[in-house]
């Protein structure tokens, strides 16, 4: 039973990745313009024969179905094709830059969590909560690139506390991470606060208080757990914000990373890299959803399905 459940889950995940890969393939085949022209550059004066031989080499002269099947079989083997521009395997292009973006995403998430938790748990009283909700509204509404520019101009150019550009150690990570973190913290903070306010009216809080739980214990053991469930449903959205934020922020702070790769691939119509990034994003989302489901079970014992109950009984 457990095995079947796991298999069904894995199959579902594969279907989503396959769907993304297929959609990317189909849609990008509709893109006007000849990829060979992109490879050679606009200025190049290549003979039609040369172009034809390149096309044959890439398999672009094959029927669409054949191209699709060979694309899928290469994907399965972990071969995402070769970048038109950089003449490197796409996996290598992504692999080289992945570390920078992962660092940025992890730092952003950590900062956002801290700000959101502090705002939701420690801020009490009508006036303070009002001020915080206005700050959250501002953080959500401000364009992330503008937040980045303001931080740069105050803390890098003005005060000189941080470097202006690049990715060199923790110093250069703080401002970009903060830029991505602020809007995320705004959304998370709103959801956590609403969840906490909602939890405080639940009967389990009264019973916990009656059993003598102090305010800190009440929040940590009971209400925060309750508030974490709606916050977790945002996980996919937050990961998306981290990735989308990376595109903008890496550009603002002149940092290397996946976002820069994506941007340059989009501007230069480097289709294999674009497809690789779409498939990569789909894989990330599928994995995040899996983690979120597991986290739900850990947080809320009521979500135990019969299978996990059996597994727990063993």
């Amino acid at each position: 039973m457990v095995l079947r459940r796991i298999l069904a889950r894995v199959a579902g995940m594969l279907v989503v990745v396959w769907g993304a890969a297929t959609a990317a393939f189909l849609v990008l085949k509709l893109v006007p313009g000849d990829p060979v022209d992109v490879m050679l550059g606009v200025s190049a004066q290549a003979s039609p024969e040369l172009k034809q031989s390149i096309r044959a080499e890439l398999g672009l002269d094959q029927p669409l179905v054949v191209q699709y099947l060979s694309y899928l079989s290469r994907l399965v083997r972990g071969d995402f094709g070769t970048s038109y521009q950089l003449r490197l395997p796409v996996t290598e292009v992504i692999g080289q830059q992945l570390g920078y973006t992962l660092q940025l995403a992890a730092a952003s998430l950590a900062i956002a969590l801290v700000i959101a938790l502090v705002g939701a748990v420690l801020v009490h009283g009508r006036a303070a909560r009002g001020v915080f909700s206005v700050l959250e509204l501002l953080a959500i509404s401000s364009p992330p690139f503008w937040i980045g520019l303001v931080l740069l101009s105050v803390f890098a150019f003005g005060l000189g506390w941080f470097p202006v550009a690049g990715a060199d150690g923790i110093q250069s990570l703080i401002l970009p991470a903060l830029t991505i973190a602020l809007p995320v913290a705004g959304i998370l903070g709103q959801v956590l606060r609403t969840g906490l306010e909602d939890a405080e009216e639940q009967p389990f809080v009264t019973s916990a208080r009656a059993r003598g739980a102090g305010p800190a214990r009440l929040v940590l053991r009971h209400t925060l757990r309750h508030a974490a469930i709606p916050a977790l449903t945002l996980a996919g959205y937050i990961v998306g914000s981290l990735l989308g934020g990376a595109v903008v922020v890496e550009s603002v702070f002149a940092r290397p990373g996946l976002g820069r790769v994506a941007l340059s691939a989009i501007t230069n119509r480097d289709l294999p890299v674009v497809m690789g990034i779409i498939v990569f994003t789909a894989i990330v989302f599928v994995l995040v959803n899996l983690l979120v489901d597991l986290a739900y079970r850990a947080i809320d014992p009521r979500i135990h399905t019969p299978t996990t109950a059996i597994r727990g009984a063993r």
Partner: protein
Amino acid sequence: MSGGLTGWLRGRVGLIAAVLLLVVVAAMAVAPWIFTPLDPLATDTSQVLQPPAWGHPFGTDQTGRDVFTRVVYGASYSLGVGVGATAAALVVGIIVGTLAGLAPRVIDSVAMRGVEILLAFPEFLIALFAIAVLGPGPVNVATAVGVAAVPAYIRVARAETLVVRRSGYVEAARGLGVHPLRVAVAHIVPNTLRPLGVIATIGIGTTIVAAAGLSFLGLGPQDPTPEWGLLLSGGRNLLGQAWWVAFFPGVLITLTVVSATVVGRRLRRAGEGRA
């Protein structure tokens, strides 16, 4: 309810400010010449990188163009994309959502699976993928942010359709033999519009930020077009010498988006109160 007028005002200061600001931005978009006598494209080599002062309230850029004038003229593109793309997305969302809500279960659930997957991504990321397909350009930016906004409207239009289709008056119209298409257009769609209007109001703000973000990345209009996102990216390289070039366009984007959100949330609360 004490204090009469002042009490009424106190609860609505934010709302009034938001509406006023939106009116001002709309006026900038429609008639920018009311706000500034200058030309957004006119360069002036004697006025390069001047800090904010009386003649140039937002300062000047590296070619002596007045930043205030450029921000004012930029409103028409940003607001045009915000309103235009949102309206187009709303229409597509209503059509697809209503059809999904009326379609057989199988079609409905397949369509909704797709919509749910799209909704898991922030609009900006979807708009970025759309640009990857469409290619850069000012019109494509508007299309991309419109496409990115559609799934949210589909979901709400479908959910409302599911509620309305079981109501007495729809049953009655069906029973009278009214054509299904007419039932959809005359009875179902009008009753789904209020919740859609609320999210569309907030959506205008989201769309403006997404479009400005794509322009900021150089995927939309090109210099010397006065566009808010583009003004910011031009200001990026001047941050060390002239903070004002990037600062003020961002203030205006933020204020516009905050205003749209405040108005939208107010509408939502009003709608909930009535329901």
